[in-house]
């Protein structure tokens, strides 16, 4: 059965795609020897425009159909080119939709031999996208039969770029194991969480708003709340409702 993807670690990379036909090396991705679970691009849409949590630049709106073409090519550590010209239309998650194909890679990747092939028309602009790479580094714990409690807070952004430290809003969770993140729709920001043994780096809140088997969950984790943030990155001033569940 295809289940929602349980995230243990996720790394965020900002990718700049110039106009013209290019091969963009992924050699800078420092995840050698990690067991990679999935790779996704994240794009704004014209209706929900976000700023990058890395640089503050606008995340480009990559249209679902033309005129830009981005293809993923991945080679594993056994030197097999096992993903060849995979169209971004399948692995791009848009800021307000669930139009993507959920997948699992389950391999170690030779990033120096992996790349994006891109074709961007001259009349278009340089693209600024976010790439997310989910990986595992410790054995999973199954706590699904444990009773959990939840706490909900409302966040009201006052600026386009604003960071909300989770310790301010969830201080009672400092020694607890967090088991889930739930957000209201149109939550235009990113969760940046430091766990004891893992890291969820600038994960779009939209990932946790997808209500289907393609959605995302988190593996139970103890979080350093003082170092962890909800990062608001949009023009919106609508209040957001964020719920965390945790083991009592």
């Amino acid at each position: 059965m295809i289940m929602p993807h349980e995230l243990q670690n996720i790394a965020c990379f900002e990718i700049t795609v110039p106009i013209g036909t290019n091969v963009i090396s992924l050699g800078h991705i420092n995840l050698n020897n990690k067991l990679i679970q999935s790779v996704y691009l994240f794009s704004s849409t014209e209706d929900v425009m976000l700023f990058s949590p890395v640089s503050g630049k606008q995340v480009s709106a990559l249209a679902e159909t033309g005129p830009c073409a981005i293809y993923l090519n991945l080679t594993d550590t056994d030197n097999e080119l096992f993903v060849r010209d995979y169209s971004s239309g399948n692995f791009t998650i848009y800021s307000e939709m669930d139009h993507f194909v959920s997948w699992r890679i389950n391999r170690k990747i030779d990033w120096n031999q992996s790349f994006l092939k891109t074709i961007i028309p001259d009349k278009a602009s340089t693209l600024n996208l976010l790439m997310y790479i989910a990986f595992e580094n410790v054995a999973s714990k199954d706590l699904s039969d444990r009773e959990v409690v939840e706490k909900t807070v409302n966040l009201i952004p006052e600026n386009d770029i604003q960071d909300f430290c989770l310790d301010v809003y969830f201080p009672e969770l400092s020694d607890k194991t967090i088991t889930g993140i739930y957000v209201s729709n149109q939550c235009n920001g990113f969760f940046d969480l430091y766990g004891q043994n893992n890291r969820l780096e600038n994960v779009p809140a939209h990932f946790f708003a997808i209500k289907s088997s393609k959605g995302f969950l988190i593996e139970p984790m103890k979080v350093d709340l003082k170092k962890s943030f909800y990062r608001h990155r949009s023009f919106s001033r609508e209040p957001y409702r964020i719920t965390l569940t945790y083991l009592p």
Partner: protein
Amino acid sequence: MTGLMRGAIGVEITLQRGQTSYRLPDMPELEGKQIISVNYCNANDVPRTSSGKIVFPLSSDRLELCLADINTGMTCKYSVADIENSPVHLTFDQKVDMQTSELALVNSDNPDIWLDTTVYLIFWYGINTDNFQFSKPRILPLEVTVNSPKNFFQPQFTLLNSRPLQLMLTFPGFTPSGRKAIDRSSVSDKFITLADKDKMLFSQIPAYYFIQSHLKTPWFFDLPSIDFEKSYVKSLKDDFSKAEILFFNLMCV
């Protein structure tokens, strides 16, 4: 529940004046098969059937499908609107006696509106499972050039000893080789037929159903292989002076 498809067939039922109940046509391909889903082709997405007939233009709430279970003889009525609007493929999961199954028109106040239009249904067969897992998939590109009514996929030697899992249609502006690919508005007149060595498996399925990224619940093949030399894309276009390129990715293990 994940749908593992072993095949599918497009079925046309042309409507007649004054007739509100239609036996389903004889479909030997479906004999003994476990039907796990039925899709109703909406005229906006699929304006003409694979044989070129005009698709029934009215709302699907005017249609009901009565499927007879081959083991019990019991019939189950399904509103076609429910089938169309369901975010996932509905689960029928039964062997159907096509000879006693029917399509019925309901709320039929103005019969002339649908005269000579055709209801196009896709019957999918295979298995539903809660236990579907695969490991270490591989992904390959497939391009099909559409420049005639029938356009074959290219032979895929790299697929030898591979089991296909998923065929995914997308609309990049350009293919990896730099050719301009078609956009979504141009797929409504394209139909896909997939075959193995001996027979057709997926017959005349609107290309629309292979846009896997738009499905809440994706579907997978349950097939040992696909013979791409015998598989093709049918186009209903009248003018082939300008070739069109369809771009797919195939996931396999």
